[in-house]
């Protein structure tokens, strides 16, 4: 009995992580309404653009998790392969963790950090600590 349990645990532990290697990129343009952005999502898997995916786009603020619930929107297929369009309604400017949840062809989730301001969205790479305030 103990041996079976041990083997089970060993088997579970040695399962390789699902190597999906999803990459994503956001290109957002502000609209006439405050805090609403038209975003183009570029999705790729292992370097190849991934088309035909069902993506739901949501967002959360890193500094206040679980507090700002942005209504998730389903992304529509865009013009180029691997591109999708979605309109994001954020409550305020600043840094957002955009959540791309895929239902097909694989179930996965990708989180992209972007800084949203009046011009659009810039990717955030948090290097050194930001200034004191």
């Amino acid at each position: 009995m103990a041996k079976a349990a041990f083997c089970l645990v060993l088997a579970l532990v040695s399962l390789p992580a699902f190597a999906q290697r999803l990459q994503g990129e956001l290109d957002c343009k502000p609209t006439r309404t405050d805090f609403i952005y038209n975003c183009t999502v570029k999705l790729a898997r292992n370097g190849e653009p991934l088309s035909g995916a069902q993506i739901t786009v949501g967002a959360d603020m890193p500094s206040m998790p679980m507090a700002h619930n942005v209504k998730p929107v389903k992304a529509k297929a865009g013009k180029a392969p691997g591109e999708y369009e979605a309109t994001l309604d954020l409550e305020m400017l600043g840094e957002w963790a955009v959540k791309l949840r895929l239902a097909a062809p694989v179930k996965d989730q990708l989180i992209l950090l972007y800084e949203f301001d009046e011009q659009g969205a810039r990717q955030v790479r948090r290097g050194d600590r930001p200034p004191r305030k």
Partner: protein
Amino acid sequence: MILDLIQNSFDGLAMGAAYALLAVGFTLVFGVLRRVNLSYGPAIMVGCYAATWVSVAFHSNIVILLGVTILGSVLAGAYVEKLCFAPHRQGSAIAAMVASFALWMQFEEAVTLVMPKHLYDFPPMFEGGPLAVGPLLLRPEALVMLACAIVICAALQFLLARTRFGLAVRAVIDAPIAAQLAGINVPRVLLLVFLLASAVGGLAGWLIVSTYTQVTPMLGMWSTLKGLLAMMIGGLGSLRGAVVGGVALGLVEAHSQWFLGPQARDLIAYLLLFVLLAWRPRWMTTQSAS
């Protein structure tokens, strides 16, 4: 190496002066009202944002902005006092604190609604860079900070020890019921102390934002944290302790950051507080407010 130490000590002293002022504001409220005001930093932030707005709209000079900052902080402070502290004067300290937290949330959102960018430039206190005094760099802002801290603390000491208002305050601290019976308008004294603390905080805020020339919505939480840290490091409840704590915090931060980087700076500051609290030397628990 010695030069670095001296330079860091000077910078640390300057920042410590700002922390000391923040701590003094906190101590005034804690010492007299026996309450923690979590909206202290956010009220200062409101003042700073008001000044930023004025600066963007009218390009006023830096001294006018000082007035606006103090005025904004005092008005925000009055709002906090009326809603969070006056109603719970004889009630629960915790309720007052949670209410002040609620107003902190209000201030933060209000400020980002009126000025939505994450970062705004604030005009500098002095144009031109630091002065070179021998091998050291002396920022004129630092001198102003130190001067303000010294003047304010002396003024407060005078106020508390030599004026009728100060007498009333001390009476309220030592024997609130007797003070009331003696005809002192206790609620009014408490309100005035609160506004005084907000004004001191506003000055501290102006010193900070005109030195760093930027304003962000994080300023509220940051000021509250630094004020609390400094107040507790120096020993809760005494003005002298607030100043000592502020200066100590500034010095510890300056040296830690130089030798070990910004994360270590904060880590060491918190560690210092934690260790002090765990050991609780007797000088940390003075309850008098002077």
